[in-house]
């Protein structure tokens, strides 16, 4: 494991996780040098370890005694979700308002969203609370992406998040170890996906009403709106799937690249960093995000709302 798995170190780390393995190859994860890891690194690691276990690769977790962030990794439930039992020599404190440990994405998407949004924005479930917009936005992006994980990936998904109060950032990450976006399109029989690269498939997934699941349960606007909310709040989004990487940053334009060294991440990873100070008036953010992608016309239809 590298020392830093943060914004700069994430893609090289994913390239390491994506190294091809032959049947029966042993995997040794050495934690001795690891000093810093973001939620994105944690969920990508857990999703990959679970996949390796499913493929029956023997695994060794080495260097734990000298790992300076062992307690942090334990608090984030990294080993627990990887199926490794370690004795805890510390007392767990309230995670609310600080972090969300790595959590398996099960079928209870709504409850998961409620738990996680409540953890990232404590008190925000109350209307008018200073955290309510962050609560609503977190709930929306978490449930939409988690729905995608459940419906499209054919793999297992994990979520984690962290609040950095000093910098005013909220970091959210969801990873699965499934088939990836391109394969999902190809399996759905979309002719236009033939010959596409992974990066092109990610770009396509951001277009409104593109979905491999389809009506009525998934109209293909979830990821589009997540990207729209990222743009509206001048935040940051990264999607990794197969060899492809797509990032939306400060200039709001999507940039598509490939993972270094020809590597391939088996599954899909979605990483978002929201600036807390920009998350204000969630309904207006949602309205602008929908309007910008043509999902909401200014004329409106004769919809009757009663108080």
């Amino acid at each position, binding site marked *: 494991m590298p020392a830093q798995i943060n914004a700069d170190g994430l893609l090289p780390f994913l390239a390491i996780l994506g190294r091809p393995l032959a049947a029966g190859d042993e995997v040794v994860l050495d934690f001795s040098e690891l000093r810093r890891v973001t939620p994105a690194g944690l969920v990508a690691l857990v999703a990959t370890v679970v996949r390796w276990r499913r493929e029956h690769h023997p695994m060794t977790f080495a260097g734990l005694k000298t790992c300076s962030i062992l307690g942090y990794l334990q608090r984030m439930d990294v080993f627990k979700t990887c199926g490794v039992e370690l004795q805890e020599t510390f007392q767990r404190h309230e995670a609310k308002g600080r972090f969300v440990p790595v959590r398996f994405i099960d079928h209870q*998407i*709504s*409850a998961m*969203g*409620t738990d996680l*949004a409540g953890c990232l924005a404590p008190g925000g*479930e109350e*209307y008018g609370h200073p955290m309510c917009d962050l609560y*609503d936005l977190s*709930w*929306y992006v978490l*449930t*939409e992406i*988690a*729905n995608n994980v459940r419906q499209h990936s054919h793999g297992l998904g994990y979520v984690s998040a962290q609040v950095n109060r000093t910098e005013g950032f909220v970091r959210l990450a969801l990873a699965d170890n499934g088939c990836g976006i391109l394969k999902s399109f190809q399996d759905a029989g979309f002719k236009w996906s033939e010959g596409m690269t992974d990066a092109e498939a990610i770009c396509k997934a951001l277009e409104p*009403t*593109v*979905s491999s699941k*389809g*009506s*009525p*349960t*998934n*109209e*293909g*606007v*979830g990821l589009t*709106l997540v990207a729209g909310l990222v743009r509206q709040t001048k935040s940051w989004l990264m999607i990794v799937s197969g060899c492809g990487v797509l990032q939306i940053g400060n200039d709001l334009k999507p940039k598509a690249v490939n993972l270094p060294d020809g590597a391939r991440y088996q599954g899909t990873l979605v990483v978002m960093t929201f600036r807390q100070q920009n998350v204000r008036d*969630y*309904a207006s953010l*949602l*309205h602008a995000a*929908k309007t910008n992608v043509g*999902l*909401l*016309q200014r004329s*409106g*239809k*004769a*919809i*009757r*709302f*009663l*108080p």
Partner: protein
Amino acid sequence: MNLELSIREHFGSHLADGAKAAEFRLGRIDPYVEICPQIILDFTGVRNANSSFINALVAGLIEQHNVSVLKKVVFKGCNPSIQVLIQAAVELGVQKIAGRVNA
């Protein structure tokens, strides 16, 4: 007789599952569109919803019965973000009828 359905009673205060919304529409709304003069979808007490849920509920309704169904359907107790989601879902339904969307 009017039909009034409490969304919160059926799904709770947070609505995320499009499959459940589609099932609800098929079983609890679609059969009554022709026989009830008014259908009230009551969102009172609903705190959050995502596009997956509201699109499956509302866009599907428009697609199935045309935009004229809005003469019968009333949305009650919606907070501002739910209103945005409903407006967008109606738009999606209209676009699907017009063949501009193939989802």
